[in-house]
């Protein structure tokens, strides 16, 4: 019996260079961090950031390379993946930047956070480049497990532990469901390779449809869980509320991008011929997410929880683009998620930065009178919130326009109208925060102290929504061209 009828071709390692570099540097950081004393943690921090920059540079330099399959077609290098990776790396870079002060203040372990974060990032990168169910699953788990550990990082906190166990059980359940779906898909198509699956499903006899549908539902759930869409969202608010702020910062932005990447690989690329079915599923999920996210966010007092529900709603909007089931829609969804990651990053960053000055920012009322305490920070947060509410000329508005246009393009006008009506409901809680920041007098009047580089990063972050709002064209075109 010949196990390897054909010799395995040598993989094109240059395509996975970013992943390799990241992995290698993660190991380096892991080791360095062990041996440097607590007061010199800045070294590992700088190392981490440098490695992220290096990865980003490689990604950008490789961006124009053509779509290529390698590692026996298990790994795909394409624009979608590259774009997502660039953003993920960038987001993680900012996350670490914001977190440093916070971690130091709260005495949470810095090195672990960085290492876990980088590993999780690696998982995301693998996930979005997977062209086979095996790396896809591995990427997913590599993304989830460190994240679970990060949530539990604050070892003294019962809430964090509770959040961690909830995330752990739920994500295990979700990946099991996904795997079950993949197993059925494997059974019907006799392949784990995404392209081959697509082909097999397209030419499949009708009698097998029920099984594919079965697996489709499982797969959709796996992905819906990852991005936190209703009714698979239950973990989101608890994790946001329970974890340390810097972890929330991490959880809120980059994994969402990876989630979309997973959906694109699984639904768009593996099951394109089933689009009617997953469109129907996604419509329901989107409708529920938009409604529930926006509604429940109104009832929240905690700022983090509110943003958690807002993220659920935003995922609903993102799905609107995806469910249009055409390249315009995918592009719009990608654009939406990228813009969302910037907005989420920025708004959580404000809590992280404000937490620096001693008190943990938890409730909306903690933002009282921010305008008097730090006008610039208030201004930036206001921009981010209005952007999330979808007010022009901010990026969130164009993100919404993109998905809505895609929707209307496929004659789902009613869904677009529905989405916008809930956007109004949603805008209420955003402007309520603005109200608290601007219209109320602060209880604590001390100015907020945070490092210069964080201030700079925050400005870049906040102004990005304005700049992307005024010139969304470049990024949007990139997103559109990716498909």
């Amino acid at each position, binding site marked *: 019996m010949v196990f390897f009828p054909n010799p395995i071709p040598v993989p094109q390692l240059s395509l996975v260079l970013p992943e390799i570099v990241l992995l290698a540097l993660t190991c380096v950081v892991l080791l360095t961090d062990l041996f440097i004393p607590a007061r010199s943690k800045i070294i590992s921090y700088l190392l981490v950031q440098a490695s992220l920059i290096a990865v980003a540079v490689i990604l950008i330099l490789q961006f124009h390379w053509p779509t290529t399959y390698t590692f026996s077609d298990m790994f795909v290098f394409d624009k979608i993946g590259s774009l997502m990776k660039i953003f993920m790396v960038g987001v993680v870079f900012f996350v670490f930047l914001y977190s440093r002060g916070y971690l130091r203040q709260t005495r949470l372990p810095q090195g672990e956070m960085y290492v876990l974060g980088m590993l999780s990032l690696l998982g995301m990168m693998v996930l979005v480049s997977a062209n086979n169910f095996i790396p896809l699953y591995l990427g997913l788990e590599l993304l989830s497990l460190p994240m679970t550990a990060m949530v539990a990082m604050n070892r003294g906190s019962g809430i964090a532990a509770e959040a961690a166990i909830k995330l752990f059980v739920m994500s295990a359940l979700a990946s099991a469901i996904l795997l079950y779906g993949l197993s059925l898909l494997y059974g019907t198509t006799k392949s784990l390779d995404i392209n081959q699956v697509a082909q097999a499903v397209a030419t499949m006899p009708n009698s*097998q449809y*029920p099984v594919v549908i*079965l697996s489709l539902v499982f797969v959709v759930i796996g992905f819906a869980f990852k991005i936190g869409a209703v009714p698979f969202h*239950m973990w989101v608010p608890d994790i946001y509320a329970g974890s340390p702020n810097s972890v929330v910062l991490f959880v809120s932005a980059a994994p969402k991008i990876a989630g979309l990447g997973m959906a694109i690989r699984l639904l768009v690329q593996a099951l394109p011929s089933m689009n009617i079915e997953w469109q129907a*599923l996604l419509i329901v999920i989107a409708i529920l997410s938009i409604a529930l996210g926006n509604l*429940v966010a109104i009832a929240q007092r905690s700022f983090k929880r509110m943003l958690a529900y807002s993220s659920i709603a935003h995922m609903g909007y993102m799905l609107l683009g995806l469910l249009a089931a055409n390249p315009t829609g995918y592009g719009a969804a990608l654009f939406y998620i990228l813009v969302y990651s910037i907005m989420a990053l920025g708004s959580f960053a404000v809590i992280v930065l404000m937490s620096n000055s001693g008190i943990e920012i938890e409730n909306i009322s903690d933002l009282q009178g921010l305008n008097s305490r730090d006008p610039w920070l208030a201004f930036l947060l206001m921009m981010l919130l209005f952007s999330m509410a979808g007010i022009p000329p901010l990026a969130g508005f164009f993100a919404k326009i993109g998905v809505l246009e895609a929707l209307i393009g496929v004659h789902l006008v009613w869904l677009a109208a529905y989405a916008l009506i809930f956007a109004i409901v949603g805008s209420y809680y955003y402007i309520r925060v603005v109200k608290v920041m601007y219209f109320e007098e602060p209880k604590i009047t001390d100015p907020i102290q945070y490092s210069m580089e964080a201030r700079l990063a925050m400005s870049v972050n906040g102004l990005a929504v304005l700049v992307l709002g005024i010139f969304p064209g470049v990024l949007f075109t990139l997103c559109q061209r990716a498909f």
Partner: protein
Amino acid sequence: MSETIRTLSLIMVCAPLLGSILAGLFSKILGRKGSHRATIGLMLVSLGCAIAIWILVIFHGGSYVGTIYVWGLSGRYHFDIGFMIDNLTAWLMIVVTFVSTLVHIYSIGYMADDDGYTRFFCYMSLFTFAMLMLITANNFLQLYFGWEGVGLVSYLLIGFWYQKETAVFGSLKAFLVNRVGDFGFIIGIAAVLTYFNTIDYQTVFANAQRLFDANTTISVFPGTHWSVLTVICITLFIGAMGKSAQMPLHVWLPESMEGPTPISALIHAATMVTAGIFMLARMSPLFELSQTALTLVLVIGATGALFTGMVGVVQHDIKRVIAYSTLSQLGYMTAACGASAFAAGIFHLMTHACFKALLFLAAGSVITAMHHEQDLRKMGGLYKYMPITYITFLVGALALSAIPPFAGFYSKDAIIEAVHNSTIPGHTYSYYCVLFGSFVTALYIFRAFFLAFHGKERIPADTKKHLRESPWVMWVPLIALAIPSTVIGALLAYPLLYKANSLFGNSIFVLPKYDVLKGMAANYHGWFSYALHAFITWPFWFAVSGIFTAWFCCWYMPNIREVITRRIAWFYYILVKKYGFDDFNQIVFAHGGRRLGQFFYYVTDAKFIDDYLVNGSGRAIQWGARMVRRIQSGYLYHYAFAMIIGLLVFLGWLEITDTHIGLFKLLTSNYFTVE
């Protein structure tokens, strides 16, 4: 010549405006003297121009119709500011500028101690400007401009003493009631535009007959077909009712007496209130074509002539007596127009302007002398102290009572006769109204006369000390008005009313079948014989008996008033209550409107729309949010359960809708091709 008239008109109209601006904006620089000098000087300019135009128009047959500037162009309509200077206008501008000039002069004395001295002159000149705009208009827009302009100044002047509660109340009331009239007026203008496609007088008048012939109707209520001309005339007349204080929109005029007396003379007697009469005469080509409208005008006018006069009998405030007299006289003028004797109406307007301004100014003279005491019950025997005022007041009273040969006689007698001769429906009722009205007129004015100037002195002692004749700036205008009050009737009755080619020229249009004046002209043989003829007519004897009654009750046997009052207490009560108009308006419109507003605001707007619908939906969403929030119970197994439910629902839904194959079948069948 028309160019000259145009230029003169422009100067005439703009001079008071300039005066007003000077007194209004530059009073600080000009000071009190400078202000009154400027305004009076410019009024004299205006008067001069008016006279010049009058000469040109009346004696040289000149006229001018044209646009000064285009106010607005819209679609195929043009709205202009322009002049139409014809005989009617020429006569009226004389009246307006003349009375206005005199009142300006008089005010120097009357307002001497007032803080708002310059403001007063500013308003008066502004008023004159607006009034001149009104009468010189060649289209409805400008007419309306003047119409509302005089209304504004009237409002400002009634409320001149803005710290006095009654004054501001009166001014508000005057404005609102006028606005009710304007409401009708603007509808009338709209109707004119709709059916004539223009608002230029000339075109409208030229096409009126055609519209009448075409029998164009409008369906105001479903199923009705009213003649368009009737609707136009009635709506326009509603405007006149407001401005000329016809029943039931007369209620504002007595309140307007809260303003300074010169204003009462100028605005609320001589000029502004007669704008309605002027408008009726101006619109004679339209009114003539609608008998319904004429009847309405006649009946309303005649009713007002009698019934408002009767209220005047029970008033104690000298100005209010004259105010009710004004109402009554306006009724006469309106009735004249209703009877198609527009010329008589305008003639009465002119004579009335003189003698009523005279009466007011004389009353004002009394009031100043009495230190702003207006109550007749605190006067008496004033003739000794104020001879000039006394004489001039008497002249005014005689003129008002239509005693020949005073001016009022010629105009009023003509009206009564015209109503008598009229043939339109309602003329009989109207005749009796105006006839009996002449008794009432004489009664109330002489009652006031006797109470003020004769009989026992009831003057408070400290007032008495300072009681003396008014300064010359005040009595000169009195004399200047007393002269025309005496003579213009005799002078102008023939040329204005009866001459075949009257001095009104063709500015007044009367259909032959309604032309009552023409019939009366046959009986007119000169002013003297007409005056003699009066002795054998009813109106004269009614008037004389009125004077007699007044003399008897107020001078000869003053106590009898008590007796009479008690005997006819119910009637007296009705009169004192002014037929209940004020109370009715106060309760129904003022109160009712406020109540309705409060209902709309507190119930419909605040409660229903805002609280239930707007905030209610907000509350509903929040309630929903709280409900949905409970799903997030915090229990891990609930989370997992939700996920599984989602899984099962999706599965069931897709499997059933897509393939009609149950889950069980799915699991048992061989779907997997294994080769």
